[in-house]
């Protein structure tokens, strides 16, 4: 069975996510007043990407750790795979880039000997793959788009890494959701 880890150590990633209210106003101007912003349109349902019913979504966490954004964990029905999708909304693109660098370092800490390479998704798209400290095969896609930073972690059993084409499909849809939310 899968021992799920948080997609990223939330604390460090979210430390970089500051100025929540301002970011919210930028990303969703129509909803920026008093009501809390619903980021439910940002995560990507892997069942749509895979045209399957293989994944079960846990209840989304709005504004994880009090930072603007959303986190959803999708668990495969066989219990050996999980996709954790985090999208954070920051004040601007510079802050998003800082958060990206922080999260990259964090992921590399968790996956010793991981390989990191650029991937053509969003801006500064990076794919980090390797064997995590918990023994699972892990692939983490991180990228920014405007003031948002996305981190998607694919956890599988040892010897069952996520296929690259699935990472690409998922990442492109994630980027599309972000762009739609930004109205671009």
């Amino acid at each position: 069975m899968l021992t799920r880890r948080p997609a990223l150590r939330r604390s460090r990633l979210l430390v970089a996510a500051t100025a929540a209210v301002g970011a919210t106003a930028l990303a969703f101007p129509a909803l920026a007043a008093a009501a809390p912003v619903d980021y439910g349109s940002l995560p990507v349902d892997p069942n749509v990407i895979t045209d399957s019913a293989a994944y079960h979504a846990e209840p989304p966490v709005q504004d994880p750790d009090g930072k603007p954004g959303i986190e959803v964990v999708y668990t495969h029905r066989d219990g050996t795979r999980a996709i954790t999708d985090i999208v954070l909304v920051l004040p601007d693109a510079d802050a998003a880039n800082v958060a990206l660098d922080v999260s990259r370092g964090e992921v590399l800490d968790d996956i010793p000997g991981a390989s990191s390479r650029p991937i053509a998704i969003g801006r500064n798209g990076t794919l980090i793959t390797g064997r995590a400290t918990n023994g699972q095969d892990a692939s983490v896609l991180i990228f920014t788009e405007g003031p948002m930073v996305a981190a998607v972690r694919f956890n599988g059993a040892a010897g069952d890494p996520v296929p690259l084409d699935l990472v690409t499909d998922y990442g492109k849809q994630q980027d599309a959701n972000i762009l739609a939310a930004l109205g671009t």
Partner: protein
Amino acid sequence: MQHMSHATIFAMGVCMKSRVRGVAAGMLLVGSAILAAPAAHAGQVVDQQVTRAPAPPRPAVQMFDCQGSTGDRGCGAGFFWRDGWRGFGCYPC
């Protein structure tokens, strides 16, 4: 020769004649071939290109699925039906 009949002597003569004719015909053929060979190649450019022998045929590889058969659920050889990252489907072995 005393004991040979005329018929026998006649037959020997015919046989000898036919052998001589055969040898002569063979010589003519060889001679014509020797004479004809240079004429046939006259005016041709000598091809210095090395003619490579055709590569030996590769051994045919027959991929089987993970159970050693030729595929399950229509996946075909080399694929395996299982519940993977994209749900139930055909995955490479």
